C-alpha cells in the first residue's frame, strides 16, 4: 500500500530549476535509497516533503490525502520525520528539550496555571527513548554540545522516533560516523522496517544503500532517472545511472574497492 505519493514535484530557486517534476512512491515499511550526485536535488526534494520548502508544482500525498497545505510542524504531527545531515539540534539545550522541541507536553502548575512544560515527564520519556535505542549518554541534563558526534546523532534519531512516525527521512546519517556506529544505524533502519516504518535513506555511501534498501531511486538533474529494485541491481548499474552513461567502469570499481 502506498504511504507517500509524490508526482510532478517542481521546485526552483530564482532562476535555478532544481526539481523538474519528480515522481516517487513509498510503501509502508519500505526502505528507499535516494542517491545522486551533488546538486541532483536530493535534499531539496526531501525538504519539500517535510514542508521546509513548498513545491512550485506537483502533488504530495500521505495515506492518500494531500499534505501540501500543511506546515512543517503539522507534517511532523501526521508522521513525517527527518534526520538532517547537520542534525538540526539546539546545542545549548539539553537532550529532552531537543527530543521534544515543538511538541513539549504541558501540565498545570499548582493544579491551575495552564501551559507549563512537564519537564519531569520529558526527562523520563527522553531517557526511555535513549535506552530503547541502546545508546549511552553521560547525562541527559547536559547541553547536547557537550556530546560526541555519534551521541548527538543518537539524540537526533531519538527525536525522530519518539512520536511514532510513519516515514523517517535520513540525510547522510552515516557520513560522519565511525565504522561501529555505521553498523548500528543500519541495524536501526532494519528495525524501523520491521516495525512497518518507511525509511528514505539519502547517502553517498552506496555500500550502505545496497545493504539495507528495498529500492534505489536515482536522482539526476532534478528528475527521477531510475527506480531500481535493490535485489536486481548492482554497484555498476547504480553508479552508471548516477553518472549518466559514458565510461563508468572506473567509478564503479572505485566504489567497490570500498574507498570512501
Amino acid at each position, binding site marked *: 500500500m502506498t504511504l507517500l505519493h509524490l508526482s510532478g514535484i517542481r521546485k526552483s530557486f530564482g532562476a535555478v530549476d532544481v526539481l523538474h517534476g519528480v515522481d516517487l512512491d513509498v510503501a509502508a515499511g519500505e526502505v528507499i535509497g535516494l542517491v545522486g550526485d551533488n546538486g541532483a536535488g536530493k535534499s531539496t526534494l526531501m525538504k519539500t516533503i*517535510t514542508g*521546509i520548502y513548498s513545491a512550485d508544482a506537483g502533488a504530495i500525498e500521505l495515506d492518500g490525502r494531500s499534505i501540501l497545505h500543511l*506546515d*512543517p*510542524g*503539522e*507534517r*511532523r*504531527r501526521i508522521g513525517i520525520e*527527518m534526520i*538532517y545531515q*547537520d542534525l*538540526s*539540534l*539546539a*546545542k*545549548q*539545550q539539553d537532550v529532552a*528539550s*531537543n527530543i521534544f*522541541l*515543538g*511538541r*513539549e507536553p*504541558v501540565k498545570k*502548575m499548582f493544579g491551575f*496555571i495552564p*501551559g*507549563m*512544560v512537564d*519537564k519531569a515527564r520529558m526527562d523520563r520519556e527522553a531517557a526511555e527513548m535513549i535506552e530503547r535505542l541502546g545508546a549511552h549518554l*553521560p547525562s541527559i*541534563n*547536559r547541553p547536547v*554540545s*557537550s*556530546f*560526541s*558526534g555519534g*551521541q548527538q546523532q543518537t539524540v537526533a534519531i531519538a*527525536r525522530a522516533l519518539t512520536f511514532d512516525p510513519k516515514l523517517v527521512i535520513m540525510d547522510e546519517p552515516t557520513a560522519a560516523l565511525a565504522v561501529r556506529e555505521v553498523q548500528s544505524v543500519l541495524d536501526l533502519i532494519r528495525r524501523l522496517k520491521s516495525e512497518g516504518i518507511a525509511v528514505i535513506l539519502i547517502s553517498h555511501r552506496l555500500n550502505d544503500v545496497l545493504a539495507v534498501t528495498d529500492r534505489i531511486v536515482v536522482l539526476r538533474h532534478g528528475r527521477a532517472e531510475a527506480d531500481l529494485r535493490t535485489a536486481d541491481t548492482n554497484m555498476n548499474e547504480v553508479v552508471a545511472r548516477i553518472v549518466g552513461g559514458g565510461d563508468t567502469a572506473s567509478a564503479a570499481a572505485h566504489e567497490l574497492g570500498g574507498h570512501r
Partner: protein
Amino acid sequence: MATTATPGIWSRAQRASIDRLHIRLESFIVLLVLAAAMAVLSPFFLSVSNFLNILLATSTIGVLAIAATFVISSGGLDLSLGSVMGLSGVVGAYIAVNLGAPSPFGVGACILAGAIAGYINGQIVTRAFVPAFIVTLGMLGIARGLALVISGGRVIYGLPEYLLFLGQGRPFGIPVPVIIFVITALVAHFVLAYTRFGRHTLALGDSEGAARAAGIRVERQRRILYTISGGLAGLAGMIFMARINSGDPTAGLNYELTAITAAIIGGTNLFGGRGSILGTMIGALIMGVLQNGLNLLAVQSYYQQMAIGAVLILAVFIDQYQVRKETRA
C-alpha cells in the same frame, strides 16, 4: 572526542544553579561583593529606605532588561528600548492630559504605543529581512523623534491622580513601581523558563534551523517577541512617567545600554540560546547598586555612563572567554 566539557571550579555548582534557579553563580557573587563594597564605602548604603530606593530606581531598567532578555535569548536585538520607553510615556501623558481620557486609557496607551513600535520592529525584521540591529537602531531614532514631535519638545505636566498613585503610591510602604516590576519579573520568568513559548524562544536563539525543522513558526515567534519587547518598554515608560509625574520626551535616553548590560551580566547569551529572567534580575540589581553607590559617593553621572559602558564590554568578554574555554577543552 571530548565528551566532558565545562571544566573549571564552577562547573558542577554552576550547572546545578542553572538547572534549578536559572541564574549564574558568578553574577550573584558580584552583586554581593559590590553591595558589601558600597556598604563599607558609604554609611548611607545599608538602610531599608536606601534599598527601596535601589529597587525603585531599578524598576524601569529592570522591566527593560526583561524585554532585552526575551529578544536577545531568541537571537535578536532591540536597541530601541529606551526610545520606545520615552515615546510611550509621552503618548500616555498626551492622552491623559491633553485629551483628558479616563483612567485606563492613559495606562493602556503607554503599553499599546510600545507594543505597536515593537510590532513594527518585528514585522520589518521577519518580512523585509533587514537585520534586527539596523531595524531597531532605526526605530531608536524614529521613536525618539516622534516623542519630541508629539510633545512639541516640551515636558507634559499635570498627570491625573491615578497615574500619580502608580508612580508614587506606597501600599504597605512598598513603592507601586517596585510591585509592578516584581510581578512582571515573576510572570516573565515563568513564561521564559517553564512554557513552550519560552522554550521555543531559547531554541530559536540557539539554532533557527533546528527550530524551523522542529515545526516552530519561527517568523511568528519573532514578531511576538518584538511586540512583547515593545510592550514592556511601554510599561517601563508608564512607570517612569508616573514616577516623575510628567511625560518627558527625553525619558529613557541611553537606557537600552543599561538594560542590555543587565541582561548580559545575568547570563543571557548575546548570540541567543541562553537566558533567564532571574539572572537578568541579578544583573539589573547589579546595575542599580552600582548607580546608587556611585550616587552616594557623589560620583558625577558622566562617569556613571562610562562605568556602565565598561561593564557591558567586560560582561560580554567574560562570557565569550568562558564559552571559548569550554569549547577548547
